[in-house]
C-alpha cells in the first residue's frame, strides 16, 4: 500500500540555523499539507499546497516558513532561522483531491529539536 514518507526521522539543530524537512507524498496525490505537534500539545495545521502554490496557511506559518515541491516527488518544508519554539514533530500529509471528505494520508513525522 502506498504511503507518505518523511526524512529525516529526527533532526537536531542549533537556534538560528536553517532546516529543510522532506516528504515524499503518495505518487498520484495532488494536495499536500504540513502539520506540527509541539510536545504535549495538539496537532496543528501549518499549510496546504496545490499546483505549486500555497492554498491555505495558518497564522503559525509566518515568513520563517516556506514550502516547495522541487521536483515531481518531493515536498519540503523549510524553516529559515529556527527558534527554540520550533521544536516539534512535523507531519506531512497528502490527498488525491481537496475537500473535507477527502482523507489526508500522513507520514510518520520528523522530530525536530532546536537547541
Amino acid at each position: 500500500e502506498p504511503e507518505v514518507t518523511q526524512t529525516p526521522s529526527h533532526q537536531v539543530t542549533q537556534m538560528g540555523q536553517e532546516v529543510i524537512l522532506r516528504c515524499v507524498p503518495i505518487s498520484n496525490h495532488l494536495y499536500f499539507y504540513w502539520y506540527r505537534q509541539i510536545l504535549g500539545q495538539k496537532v496543528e495545521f501549518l499549510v496546504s499546497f496545490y499546483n505549486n502554490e500555497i492554498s491555505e496557511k495558518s497564522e503559525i506559518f509566518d515568513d520563517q516558513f516556506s514550502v516547495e515541491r522541487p521536483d515531481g516527488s518531493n515536498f519540503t518544508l523549510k524553516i529559515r532561522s529556527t527558534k527554540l519554539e520550533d521544536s516539534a514533530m512535523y507531519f506531512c500529509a497528502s490527498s488525491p483531491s481537496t475537500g473535507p471528505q477527502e482523507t489526508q494520508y500522513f507520514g510518520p513525522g520528523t522530530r525536530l529539536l532546536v537547541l
Partner: protein
Amino acid sequence: AQSVTQPDIHITVSEGASLELRCNYSYGATPYLFWYVQSPGQGLQLLLKYFSGDTLVQGIKGFEAEFKRSQSSFNLRKPSVHWSDAAEYFCVVGAYNTDKLIFGTGTRLQVFP
C-alpha cells in the same frame, strides 16, 4: 470556530475488554469527523470517517464510531481490544470551507495482557 475535545488523556484496558474513547466537537454545521490512530514510529492512520448518512460508522481493525448530533459526540468503540491496539487515538474535525483538519489532544490507550 471548530474545536474538538477528548476528555481522556490516558486509558488503560485489559486485552479482550471493550473500549470506548470519547470525543466531543464544536461546529456550527454538520461536521466532517474522523478518527486517526498513531502507533509508535508510524504515521497517523485513518480508522474511520463520517460525513452524513448512517450515524454508526464502521472502520478498520474492528473499530466503529457513532455520531450523536444531540450530544455533539463522535465516540470510538471496539468490542474487544487486542494488545496491538495500544496507540494514540485522535478525534479530528474537518470543515467544508477549509483544508485544515482540527485535532483533539489525543487519547493514549494502553492494553494489559
